[in-house]
């Protein structure tokens, strides 16, 4: 008997008497839930590890942060006595909404995102298209190589690039000098470019992988039909492949925006390199970190965190809606 027959018999068996009996009287099904509901619950159970992690590490901190943001802590006199914690309502939010330092940092990273996110998207898409165009064996090698920067933690990546950029000991300066280019990656005017390059380098691998996966799902017959009609590879890429991966582009775009608005480790390390440009309040995450761990005002930092989360959420919804409208 073949395995196919066994499967068919097994499936068929579910509709017979004993199987039905087991659904109603057996130990695996609740008398209150239908078999279909039980199957749904079992299916959903595969998501529990994620749901638990999401609840503990995302939802719970948001709730705790929200609770903290409603209080304020003050001392008196010389400040040596115990601090008095009192309910402040939405005072911390009002302060955050009117805080010019916080919103300047938000504007700064927003402008940065306007430049860096499209660059990341274009480079990732180009790489995905190139890899999609070559043989699978070659593609696998490049895919892995391009994913390596994404696997390197942000702090480590920044340290590596600080060395590469170093005008004294880094390898890039002599190469550029050889071509007659006098570039100082640490100068105030170049610091944005230096951070941007590092960001693009770190994120193209992940974006490329998502886009490459989407490209692999495009039916190959369409390409053959286009080639028969005389379309060039560039035309196929622009007219067939790119429209097919538009949903994935929206996803990678959203993730890039969310990541860019929360940028922290790169400017934090670059702060020593160009302190006149990168201040302690350079990005919203740096403002929040400074409030929490330097100034010591955890209540206000919590309110700022929630405001930042709201801004990122609203920006994501707007961009998602706009791109969907364009798509439709």
């Amino acid at each position: 008997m073949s395995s196919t027959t066994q499967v068919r018999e097994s499936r068929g068996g579910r509709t017979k008497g004993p199987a039905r009996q087991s659904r109603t009287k057996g130990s695996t099904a609740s008398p209150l839930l239908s078999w279909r509901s039980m199957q749904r619950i079992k299916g959903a159970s595969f998501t529990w590890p994620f749901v638990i992690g999401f609840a503990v590490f995302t939802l719970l901190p948001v709730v705790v942060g929200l609770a903290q943001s409603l209080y304020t802590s003050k001392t008196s006199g010389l400040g040596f006595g115990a601090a008095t914690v009192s309910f402040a309502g939405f005072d911390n939010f009002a302060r955050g909404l009117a805080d010019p330092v916080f919103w300047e940092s938000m504007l700064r990273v927003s402008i940065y995102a306007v430049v860096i996110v499209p660059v990341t998207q274009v480079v990732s898409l180009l790489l995905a298209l190139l890899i999609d165009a070559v043989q699978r064996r070659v593609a696998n090698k490049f895919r892995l190589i391009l994913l390596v920067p994404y696997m390197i933690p942000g702090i480590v990546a920044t340290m590596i690039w600080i060395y590469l950029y170093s005008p004294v000991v880094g390898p890039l300066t002599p190469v550029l000098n050889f071509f007659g280019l006098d570039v100082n990656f640490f100068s105030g005017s170049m610091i944005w470019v230096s951070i941007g390059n590092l960001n693009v380098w770190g994120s193209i691998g992940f974006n490329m992988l998502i886009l490459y996966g989407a490209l692999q799902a495009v039916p190959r017959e369409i390409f053959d039909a286009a080639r028969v009609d005389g379309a060039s590879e560039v035309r196929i890429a622009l007219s067939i492949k790119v429209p097919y991966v538009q949903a994935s582009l929206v996803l990678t775009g959203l993730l890039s925006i969310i990541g860019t608005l929360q940028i922290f480790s790169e400017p934090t390390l670059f702060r020593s390199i160009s302190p006149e440009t990168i201040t302690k309040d350079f990005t919203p995450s740096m403002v929040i970190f400074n409030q929490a761990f330097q100034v010591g005002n955890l209540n206000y930092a919590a309110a700022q965190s929630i405001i930042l989360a709201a801004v990122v959420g609203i920006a994501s919804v707007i961009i998602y809606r706009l791109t969907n409208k364009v798509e439709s």
Partner: protein
Amino acid sequence: MSLKNTKRKALSISAAAAAIGLLAGCGSAPTPAAAPTAAGPVTIDVWGWDAESTPNVVAAFNASQDKITVNYVLQASLKATQTNFRNVMESEKDIPCYLPGIGPIATTLVNGWAQDITEYVEPIKDVYSKGAQAAAQVEGKFFGFPAGPSATFMMANKAVYDKYGLAVPKTWEEFVSTGKELKAHGVTVMNLAGEDPSTLLQMSQQAGASWFEIDGDKWKVNLQDDATLKAVNIIQQMVDQDLVSHQTYQDRPALYSYFDSGQLATVPLAWWSMAGYQTNFKASLGQWEAVDVPQFKDAKEFVSSGMADPGFVPVGCENPAAAVEYAHWVASSKEAIEAGRNKKTGAIGVPAHLADVSTYTEDVVPDKIFGAQPAAEVGKVIAKAQNAAVGKFERGPNYDAWFPEMQDQWGKVMAKQITLKEAMANVQTFITKDLDSKGIKYEVSK
């Protein structure tokens, strides 16, 4: 919170604390047994970010007695220690029993972190210098363990000075004029990193500035007094006339390369950074000479600068007596000095918490960096600086809030976007706003 190699500093400070064992060996100091002990065997967590010497010191302490077991919790860096410690104090769980200094004691106390350990330190306090005691006290009570400052002296590249026929400057005013002459040869007189305003703090301290003072139930704040302005004036001249370099400590290979290149004439330093320079210098090894830190022209007596951040027992530690006994043993036993000896350089640390350190300073001098100058002579320069270090320089109740702001302002000054005088006014405004938001009473003194 100077950025200059905090890791190496921690290592050296632990060695320094151990170095006092030499004094204990003379039999004049109380033995560790004189300290109060915890009832019964206890285990305490001690945090730190030194991965080299402190684990050995802790192991030696654990082996030396059976009443207290210290569990050393290694942190990644000073910054990580500050962040993680704030987290555990907020959560009120797994609070350690002892931390090396992570800031001035007044700020630590305002943050609600430091326990009053007067009853444990009082019986043993005479082992430590008056300055070390003062650094650990607030309003007459010990909230920290006595700690001495690492005083500033200077390292001058004698080959550079000789090449251009210049004398090493003895006053800050001469420092500026010498800087102008060196500039003509493409040499900078000193490095001022854009992210590190510690030179400003040290020079202000040396000039006799008092930025924070307790006056009854309020703080008196003044970052623009005459003494500070003397330091501000010297630094501003050096920046305006491009007499200084701005190599960052973040790109350390480039920094050492520049220092080693003969393009830099003088380096202000504390004893703990000498080994790092020796390890990383190549071309200039043997060309350096230890000299006194320049004085202000009208100084009445020789003064050096240096700040101490005392270790403390956090609120929530249930065994403060055990923590103090550990800290005292580390700072005052023979075994501790041996355990804390740097395995790579063989050096001990300067016991900065003593009134006179001249007996020990020769042992901390690396063998290659100073060429013709004997170690004993270098040791005398260090001892002179150490003995002349200004005692406590109060950094107020909110140092951890204002220091990052000062870094921002300092960076702008180094980039010539604002003047240092404007920067000081900005930092003072920041301080007063922060004190307002915290409910701390203050007065801006004239």
